[in-house]
């Protein structure tokens, strides 16, 4: 890892320089909600945002995506991709993308996801947790890789971590904008991280979590929450690691059709349906529990399928809290 410093006065020029790498998308505030939008002027960006509603997965795994297009009765792939710069990703979202990478880049790789991923520059930014964040307990509060550049806030600028060859190239081409990091900068960086570590209000004790949940399969807590849950699937849509999709062919006109995929949700009744109307997860309880098991599945190589971003809590219309459910389930075992 190489560390350099971007002084505050050079921020605007640095930001403008990113346009050479593709369309720049950054968090902006619209209504009461933050979202990643195309940005030209750094003044539009909400640098101190907490979380966007849709995570950055929407750029790679799109809410609605044309995979194949029919030409003369044959499918042709639809692989036009614009180069992009995603500016201002929080470390939890970078971890979220790494989990999606594991699924979508695993052989056979999804060509749409892969091409978009290859053509995208990721610039991370440091953040302060709010009442929903619990990334620290899952170890996703700091990104060691998965980005090209990562900007950490300093009193007079940004400490920049370079995480890839492309990150090096960006820094190289704008060499005059950066300075060497001083001991004072490092002290400030350390102080910021310490302050941040103390700011977390929510914690998910992960000791034995996966086993504990498995043992608590019949816990009455699942039932209690399944009754509160509206089964709207919002938590799936906003989750940075949820990736279920449904496929559908759609006729554009009498001669051409497209094969589209769309976000799907395991809260929908037809998610576990097979031929002959047999449903493997017929009740809301089954579906509710399935989501928690899926999120809490521990893969030794990529960790949990949850990064603690807090979106599912913030955007749940029934105000169900992920950590609280898991803690109650744990409590019901005692």
């Amino acid at each position, binding site marked *: 890892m190489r560390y350099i410093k971007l002084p505050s006065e050079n921020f605007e020029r640095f930001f403008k320089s990113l346009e050479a790498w593709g369309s720049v998308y950054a968090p902006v505030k619209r209504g009461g909600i933050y979202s990643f939008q195309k940005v030209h002027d750094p003044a539009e960006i909400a640098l101190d945002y907490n979380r966007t509603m849709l995570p950055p997965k929407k750029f790679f795994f799109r809410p609605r995506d044309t995979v194949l297009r029919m030409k003369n009765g044959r499918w042709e*792939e639809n692989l036009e991709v614009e180069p992009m710069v995603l500016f201002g990703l929080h470390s939890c979202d970078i971890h979220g993308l790494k989990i999606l990478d594991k699924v979508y880049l695993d052989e056979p790789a999804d060509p749409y996801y892969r091409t978009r991923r290859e053509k995208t520059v990721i610039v991370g930014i440091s953040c302060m947790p709010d009442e929903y964040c619990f990334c620290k307990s899952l170890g996703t509060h700091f990104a060691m890789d998965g980005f090209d550049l990562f900007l950490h806030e300093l009193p007079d600028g940004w400490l920049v971590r370079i995480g890839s060859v492309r990150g090096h190239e960006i820094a190289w081409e704008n060499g005059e904008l950066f300075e060497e990091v001083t001991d004072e900068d490092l002290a400030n960086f350390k102080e910021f991280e310490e302050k941040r570590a103390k700011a977390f209000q929510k914690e998910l004790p992960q000791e034995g979590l996966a086993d504990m949940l*498995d043992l608590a399969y019949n816990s009455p807590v699942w039932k209690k929450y399944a009754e509160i849950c509206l089964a709207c699937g919002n938590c799936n849509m906003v989750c940075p690691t949820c990736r279920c999709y*449904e496929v559908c062919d759609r006729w554009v006109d009498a001669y051409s*059709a497209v094969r589209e995929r769309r976000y799907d949700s395991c809260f929908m009744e037809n998610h576990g349906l097979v031929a002959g109307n047999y449903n493997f997860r017929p009740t809301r309880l089954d579906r509710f529990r399935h989501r928690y098991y899926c999120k809490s599945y521990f893969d030794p190589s990529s960790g949990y399928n949850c990064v603690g971003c807090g979106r599912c809590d913030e955007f749940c219309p029934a105000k169900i809290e992920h950590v609280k459910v898991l803690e109650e389930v744990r409590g019901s075992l005692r």
Partner: protein
Amino acid sequence: MSENPYQTYDARILEVKDLTSREKLFTLRFVDSKIEDKFDFRPGQFVIVDIRGFGEFPISICSSPTRKGYFQLCIRKVGRMTKFIHRMKEGDVVGIRGPYGNGFPMEKMEGSNLILVAGGLGMAPLRSVLWYAIDTGKYENVWLLYGTKAYEDILFRDEIIHLLKHGEAMNCSVKLAYEVESPSCIYLEQGFSDKVCKGVVTDLFRGEEFDVNNTYALICGPPVMYKFVIRELLDRKLSPGRIYMTLERRMRCGVGKCGHCVVGTSVSMKYICQDGPVFTYWDALSTRGLI
């Protein structure tokens, strides 16, 4: 092959045969001979059938890989897509991608006895194993225990009756259980009194002896069947590692992305399409929701 795993390849329907009032047997071959030459599969694997502009659906291959130049799919008319393919005729073209899944470990089982336990449409993937075993001759004895609703529902009836008559010569013993009585069934029962009976598939285990150290059981049928068949096998001290079963979920992508076939809990999650569709009973014991 293209790098796009969602691209399908033209396959021509060579023959359509009515098996029952609900099931048809489609014999297919890839139009492109290069694709046809490359296409190889294991018994128990499945393909995704693509009717362009209407959708895709997964179907297990029911022919044996020992029979070259074509492959067969047994398709029951149950929904929109299968209704669509049931209207198709010889010469029509569909898209195919695959094969997907792990299939049965045929090499590992060489030299052993195989007990194939099929219920209803579960006969389709097991037919691939059956003919593979007969064609290669690499297995000691093959039992096929087949449970069906009525005489009219017996899939591959000609083949089943042929094996009832001449199976012994091929080291293959077929037994049949039916639930609904009919003149045809009674006739069959009279002809093969030790092999055909009224009842359910587990009734066919009665009187059968097998060496548990040299036998594998392969099961496929409706979800309700597994519990009873597995109990029967475990009672006879067959190791859970020797019980294989092939399972069904709503496979959309077939390549472990779309998430529809995921089962399990926080300690063990499996993709039916990639980790399966063939699992052992050990897998079922360690993965909740598998059966």
